[in-house]
């Protein structure tokens, strides 16, 4: 009887193993569970918080409708943070896109020490961002800035002049964008290298035979061919720029006078430090519809331009 049962069970397992329909679902299950538990649940909780009056020290909450959203749009700091977020995201992504293209092109060529260069470029991505940002904080320090020291040493600045990298709104924004670009560049470069590697060599050869120059070759052949994968890089970059606050938290904490405050950092200061979890949730979710729309648009674009 036992032998018969185990034989039947074994046969069922073999059938399940060979059934692609069920096997696929089974193998996807851990990823779906992960997303549901660690991303979906907090997200829906944040949605619920944003229409409530919960505080960081409270366990009870009441439904308040859109009151938190109406309150934040009347707050000048929020409006400033919204503008800063858009500036931060768009400028950093344009820079990342240009620099990643240059780097990817360079790293496609063969040269001595290529692996060292690749390793160095990847370093900002693999190092903890908080540590990297602290390094940059010292480079931008008002007294001990190595950048100022270098500029003084080469005679560009006189010895009594110190540039306050994080003390002027425009310089502070430029500084946080620089660090953000430094951090995201490796990912975008690796993605673009993958895209460039997938372009068949005969297409490049044909372009060369037809006499296409570098710019024409690049803009009319290479870019259209890697556009789908480049769209993915841009999408990643935008999501990071809109949702991350580590660089700003470490370097400026939103200063000087909120000129580098972004929605993610404002949400943290309001929700966690300030204790108003509901308003913090509303601030952090404010751009969610826009981000979802942008993600759909990017993915749709990526599919349309895909070369088959």
């Amino acid at each position, binding site marked *: 009887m036992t032998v018969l049962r185990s034989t039947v069970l074994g046969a069922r397992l073999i059938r399940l193993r060979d059934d692609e329909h069920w096997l696929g679902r089974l193998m996807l299950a851990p990823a779906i569970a992960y997303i549901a538990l660690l991303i979906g649940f907090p997200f829906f909780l944040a949605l619920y918080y944003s229409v409530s009056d919960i505080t*960081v020290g409270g366990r009870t909450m009441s439904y308040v409708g859109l009151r938190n959203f109406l309150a934040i749009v009347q707050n000048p700091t929020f409006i400033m943070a919204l503008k800063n977020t858009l500036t931060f995201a768009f400028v950093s992504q344009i820079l990342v896109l240009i620099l990643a293209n240059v780097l990817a092109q360079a790293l496609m060529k063969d040269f001595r020490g290529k692996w060292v260069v690749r390793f160095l470029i990847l370093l900002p991505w693999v190092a903890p961002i908080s540590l990297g940002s602290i390094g940059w*904080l010292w480079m931008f320090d008002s007294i001990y800035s190595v950048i100022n020291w270098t500029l003084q040493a080469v005679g560009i600045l006189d010895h009594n002049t110190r540039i306050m990298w994080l003390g002027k709104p425009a310089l502070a924004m430029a500084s946080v964008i620089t660090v953000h670009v430094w951090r995201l560049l490796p990912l975008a470069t690796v993605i673009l290298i993958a895209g460039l590697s997938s372009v068949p060599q005969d297409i490049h050869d044909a372009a060369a035979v037809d006499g296409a120059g570098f710019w024409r070759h690049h803009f009319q052949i290479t870019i259209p061919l890697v556009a789908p994968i480049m769209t993915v890089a841009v999408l990643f970059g935008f999501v990071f720029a809109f949702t991350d606050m580590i660089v700003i938290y470490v370097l400026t904490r939103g200063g*000087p006078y*909120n000129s580098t405050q972004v929605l993610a950092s404002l949400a943290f200061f309001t929700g966690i430090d*300030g204790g108003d979890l509901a308003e913090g949730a509303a601030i952090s979710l404010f751009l969610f519809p826009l981000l979802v729309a942008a993600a759909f648009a990017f993915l749709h674009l990526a599919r349309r331009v895909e070369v088959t």
Partner: protein
Amino acid sequence: MGQKKNKPVSRRDFIKTAGTAALAVGVGAHIIVPGRASAQQKTLKILQWNHFVPGYDKWFHNTYIKEWGEKNNTKVIVDNIGLAGLNSRAAAEVSAQKGHDLFLFLWPAPVYEDQVIDHREIYEECERKYGKAIDLAIRSTYNPKTKKYYGFSDSYVPDPINYRKDLWDDVGMFPDTWDDIRVGGGKIKKKHGIPVGIGLASEIDTNMALRAIMYSFGSSVHDAESKPVLKSENTLEAIKFVKALHKEAMTDEVFTWDASSNNRFMLSGKGSLALNAISITRTGENKKIPVTDNIWLAKAAKGPVRRIGLEHVMDVYVIWKFAENIEGAKQFLIDYVGNFRSGFLASEFYNFPCFPKTVPDFKTLISKDSKAKPPDKYKVLEDVLDWATNVGYPGYANAAIDEVFSTWVISTMFAQAAAGKMTPKDALNQADKEVRRIFKKWRDRGKI
């Protein structure tokens, strides 16, 4: 008498006997000997910051908690984290309803009032044993609306003026009033190129220094009845003063500062004056930085209305309602206050007692310090309670004051005006609007 037979022990017998013995030792200790069960070692988990003075943590970990643990049959576990991580950690513990039995904030945390026990009993016991607590402690841990003590303060850190005596002597001035600081600071900057440094950034020391200026100008965020009163002529005058101070005596680096910038500023020899705890001089003494002997301390500066400053750090311990060892945590705090003299010495006078009688020789100790040059450098702090106040002055700290503090409303107001981005009046109007919005929100929630 029959002879006892030497019966060989079977494997079954051995297991039975060993099992019974183990049961008797393990379970029996709880059932058969109840006294033994109650004497089982307890655990007390404490979370606090990495103290600015490493010697304090050394004393706390290696001496104090060991001795206290042995006396109270308790295993004490202390976790230290950076100052910047305290709020996030507290939020995480509350969200999980699990964490430490004692949690140390470095500022009043009224927002967690619903999550903590009423600490009244601890104050009462400490006052019975060690005398009255200072007003500053009560104003930083008591909610007059709900009549609840939402924390317990064992100590506070003074926030005196740190100034370069050589430079101030050189221009023939002393930083006694805020106007002296503007005029003298301006002269030093002009003559030596060394500025004053009062932060205008989104950081805690800025928050303290700018409130000190406001209070000394007769301005405040709210009044004694927790009504927002930021918009006043006094605040406007304070903003205009800071704008002038920035223009005449400071540089733009104050917009870039973090909590440790004023330490670096003074110890690098590139600053003539800053407001800070005694961390500047203590670091200088411990690291033997030459400029330290020229950095002297002064009382809070006098403004047009009064001489007043803030505490620099307010130790506020809380016991969560969900703590597993509430009684142990209460006892720990009561005993800790009783031993505060050792803590005061271990912190190298950084932490001052909230129960002054626990350090009876306080004035003698601070008037003769072995590291300071001159040895009475810290004597100026002996009447600190006459000029130090709490963040919510002239009222109590509350949830709205906490949010105004944590979202940098006041530092942004001053910075916008000082940088010329807004007129003083516009900066004040904007901040006032935000303060009123925050107060209304917390009033609607019944917290003020």
